[in-house]
């Protein structure tokens, strides 16, 4: 029902900007656009990053699967492989710790005035992306090995969508309760 809007690339660029401004406000108000909050998450002394991410997942998953069940939205997942997901994920993690921001929050940090985010982080990300583009033919050959058998958790667990979501919500709420109880 939103086909014409989805295909209008100028309207989409305007929507992207609007969604980004809202995303940026939430990230900044959560505190995750600062180095301190992110590095303290990785040093396990502040769990703000995890709380933000898992709250988004809990709220997001309910609406997304409700709309998907009604045929209102498409899902966007890709299969992944050991060589792509695990190796790439660990490289990402090393960069995450050294920079102290991630690709979304580094943009927010720039907006807040963090010069290490701009002249270190963004510049480094441009160089890193370019290196990937140069090495892409060789890396993509390596990445294709060890493809995961299943694309979605439902297939791994042999459960229906809501049979995965409900226990997931319970686990997330229990984790939040535990974190608050520990004062983290």
């Amino acid at each position, binding site marked *: 029902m939103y086909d014409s809007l*989805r295909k209008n*690339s100028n309207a*989409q660029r305007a*929507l992207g*900007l609007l969604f*980004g*401004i809202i*995303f*940026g406000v*939430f*990230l*900044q*108000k959560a505190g995750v656009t600062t*180095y301190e909050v992110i590095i303290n998450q990785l*040093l396990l002394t502040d769990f703000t990053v995890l*709380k933000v991410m898992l*709250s*988004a997942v809990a*709220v*997001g*998953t309910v609406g*997304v699967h409700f*709309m998907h069940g009604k045929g209102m*939205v498409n899902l966007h*997942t890709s*299969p*992944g*492989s050991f060589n*792509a*997901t695990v190796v*790439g*994920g660990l490289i*990402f*993690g*090393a*960069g*995450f*710790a*050294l*920079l*102290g921001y*991630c*690709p979304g929050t580094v943009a927010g940090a720039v*907006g807040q*005035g963090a010069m*290490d985010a701009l*002249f*270190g982080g963004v*510049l*480094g*990300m*441009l*160089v*890193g*992306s*370019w290196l990937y*583009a140069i090495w892409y033919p060789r890396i993509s050959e390596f990445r294709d090995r060890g493809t*995961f058998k299943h694309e979605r958790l439902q*297939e791994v667990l042999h459960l229906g*969508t809501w049979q995965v979501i409900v226990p997931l919500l319970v686990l997330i709420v229990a984790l939040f309760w535990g974190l608050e109880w520990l004062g983290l």
Partner: protein
Amino acid sequence: MEWLRLEQWSPYICGAGIGILSWFTLLLSDKALGASTSYARTAGMIERLFRGSRVLEREFFKTVTPTIDWQWMLVLGIVIGAFLSSALSGQATIRWVPDPWFSVFGAAVWPRILVAFVGGCLLALGSRWAGGCTSGHGISGTMQLAVASWIAAICFFVGGIAVATLLYALPTL
């Protein structure tokens, strides 16, 4: 509108807000929240300034075209949104060396910029390698119950916790 001037909102409220935002990006734009691909597009645009359309002969830039798309505008929006939010709360200030770094490694600017630069390189390499970042995999993919995204998100934190712990243990070695 006093709440817009607050320095911080509950992380649960902000997270829930991002969750609701993701409903609308899928509904109105048929796109999931993500950020990292935009840096790759920008790298292509910069190379294009120097090498012209030969850039498009690279296999990578055939799939990730060096153009301004929905997600590129989203990342620009994050800069603007975080600026507005921090300006309203009085937190927007030019800072070169952030806090915990300052107390452990000192006030010198170059070491911080250098480490941040290396971190940025690895972050971008890792994002493209894993096919997403903390937004694309960590929030969007996990909420869509994608196996690869849950594994990627766990690896982001395993690698991040290991390297951060090592980094902050260095001065005591």
